[in-house]
């Protein structure tokens, strides 16, 4: 006769197992997910953290994470909070996956405020039937991305929905950061005459995801540009350029983002189409599918509006950073009571660049 081993729980089958409804119920199975998937994956993101006693920080199993504030922050600093949700389908696409997007998205939201990111939370809404191997892959991706951005994933939550009620996984991350006194970036701060700088080629993330769905193939594959922009922003803030606005052109693309800024600041804009960095393969795919790259999502690019005298300094700083090598000045802020964003076409005419209307449905005619 054998006695059941006290406290024994059969480990999750991370190779062949699947998420089922017990994993979201808050019981032992949920606990296992945390202990066997999330903690092992995220542990390397908090190795630099210490608790209030100077000991290596551990997450514990409480409802919230208690974290000491860094001691070396400048007087007059402010806290910044940002949140992001990701529902991308497919979960894994050329150049990235939903895990990376979830980390980069919130890190970048903080960076666009000029903030240094500190900690992230991670919420998962998982669909019944999701392979555990996929979840492990996503968690490891998140950890890699977090380490690259020097940010810790310290707490989170998991829920499970019935099969058919979700696209595999939905992720949401919230980030805490701090911003130095004197850094005041806002979409409402653009001034007439400001230069509009774009950090690199556009349309890659949107196309990488769409192309999976549409079965396009590429000679050299279009990969998502998803990347953490906080180190680039740090360099930009330190180069002396008078920055007014930082914004990452995600859903809706460059066109929508610039329209948002124009409306918030009460200005117009004039862009130069020939100056906009664009890979030939992205252009070709957009032509084939009837899409405009200016409306496609970017997950590793930023727009910066600065004083016109500081453009060269800013561009030099961008060019010196791996994520800014293709940076260009693409236009100017103008006086315009109607807040139109216009563009001089490569062809020589002028057109408006309006907000994105609806979804970019590929057109036939």
């Amino acid at each position: 006769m054998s006695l059941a081993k006290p406290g024994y729980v059969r480990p999750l089958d991370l190779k062949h197992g699947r998420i089922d409804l017990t994993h979201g119920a808050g019981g032992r199975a949920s606990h296992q997910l945390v202990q066997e998937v999330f903690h092992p994956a995220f542990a390397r993101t908090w190795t630099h953290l210490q608790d209030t006693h100077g000991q290596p920080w551990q997450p514990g199993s409480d409802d919230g994470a208690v974290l000491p504030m860094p001691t070396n922050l400048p007087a007059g600093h402010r806290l910044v909070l940002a949140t992001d949700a990701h529902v991308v389908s497919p979960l894994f696409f050329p150049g990235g996956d939903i895990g990376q997007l979830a980390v980069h998205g919130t890190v970048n939201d903080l960076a666009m405020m000029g903030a240094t990111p500190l900690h992230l939370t991670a919420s998962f809404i998982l669909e019944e039937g999701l392979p555990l191997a996929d979840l492990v892959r996503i968690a490891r991706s998140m950890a890699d991305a977090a380490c690259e951005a020097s940010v810790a994933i310290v707490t989170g939550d998991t829920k499970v929905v019935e099969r058919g009620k979700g696209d595999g996984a939905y992720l949401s991350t919230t980030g805490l950061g701090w911003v130095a006194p004197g850094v005041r970036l806002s979409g409402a701060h653009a001034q007439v005459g400001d230069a509009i700088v774009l950090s690199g080629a556009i349309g890659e993330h949107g196309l990488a995801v769409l192309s999976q769905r549409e079965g396009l193939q590429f000679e050299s594959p279009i990969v998502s540009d998803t990347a953490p922009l906080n180190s680039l922003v740090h360099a930009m803030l330190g180069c002396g350029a008078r920055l007014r606005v930082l914004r990452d052109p995600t859903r809706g693309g460059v066109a929508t983002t610039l329209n948002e800024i124009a409306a918030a600041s009460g200005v117009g804009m004039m862009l130069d189409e020939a100056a906009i960095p664009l890979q030939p393969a992205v252009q070709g795919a957009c032509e084939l599918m009837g899409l405009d790259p200016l409306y496609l999502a970017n997950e590793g690019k930023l727009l910066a509006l600065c004083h016109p005298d500081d453009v060269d300094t800013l561009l030099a700083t961008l060019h010196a950073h791996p994520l800014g090598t293709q940076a260009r000045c693409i236009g100017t802020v103008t006086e315009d009571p109607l807040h139109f964003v216009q563009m001089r076409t490569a062809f020589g005419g002028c057109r408006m660049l309006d907000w994105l209307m609806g979804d970019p449905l590929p057109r036939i005619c």
Partner: protein
Amino acid sequence: MKYVSEFRDPTLARRLAHKLVDAVQPGRAYRFMEFCGGHTHALARYGVLDLLPPQIQMIHGPGCPVCVLPIGRIDMAIELAQRPGVILASYGDTLRVPASRQLSLIRARAQGADVRIVYAVDDALALARAHSDREVVFLAIGFETTTPPTAVALQTAEREGLRNFSVLCNHVLTPAAMHAILDQPEHVPLDGLVGPAHVSTIIGTRPYEVFAARYHLPVVIAGFEPLDMMQAILMLVAQVNTGRAEVENEFTRAVSLQGNTRAQALVHEVFALREDFAWRGLDRIPHSALRLRPAYARFDAELRFGLHDRSVPDHPQCLCGPILRGQRQPMDCKLFGTVCTPDNPMGACMVSSEGACAAHYAYGRHRAHTSTTAAPTESTPT
């Protein structure tokens, strides 16, 4: 990109613009209709309108198959999509066109109808093969460019013995629409026609000869790129100046006199002419649209599902009709930019990216208003 980039060269564009300035006679107005929605879109998107001298006015024609699809036909598609067991497959362009009862295909989808966007008719065939327990209906729209692919798909369905595939056919014909524009009682004075690019690759240049002969109207078939369009407009100006009325072909690299005879034969095998067909904005036009031949009757969604065509009027203040006929411009419509925007379209001209209203809203509303009666106010290129 070969055959694309060279035809968008800005240096050549500036030189063609010079040539146009040279060619127009000072006191004279030139009113040209670009029939094809793709041309309307290209003129706006590349800013070609900025490079034309003020004497030239471009009037938008009805060559946008989404724009001319009557509300009643979309109602039919929505009704089908709402039936249990039906998957309605449609090109993306048609999804947001407003129909009756505040519905559109995309709103019907939000309410539970199974509507799928397809890029190609073959995707609809694939859906039929994959879902043998469902009825897959393909919403076919388009002029002569888009009809041959539907014909091939129907022949494929025949060959494979597909039992759950059908087509709701709304294919229409360019020459018939051109006649309707030129014959309409409220006469729209025109000096020339820019003929469609890709329709002409299929039908050739011969069908346009009647317009030159009967209406004494110059016709130039233009390619799809902005330089093609400028060149074609230049050729029209030259014809007007010398009193000629001929069919000329600027798009010689893809269009011949006889067109694509293989595609024409395939279409003839599968489709027959309808007696007449209601066009949004143009009323009923005889022999202007196609239906499936009796041999393909089982693939005809109208017969298969016992559907009846109902005529549904447009919103009373919607000017899509007169705009499609070339009598009015988008800015003349009270609803334009106020109630009617691409986000909340009242009429088809605002939904389709090739509709005159959508093109003007998206690309051109920074330009001063011009009406059909007043002289254009665009400044001369300086």
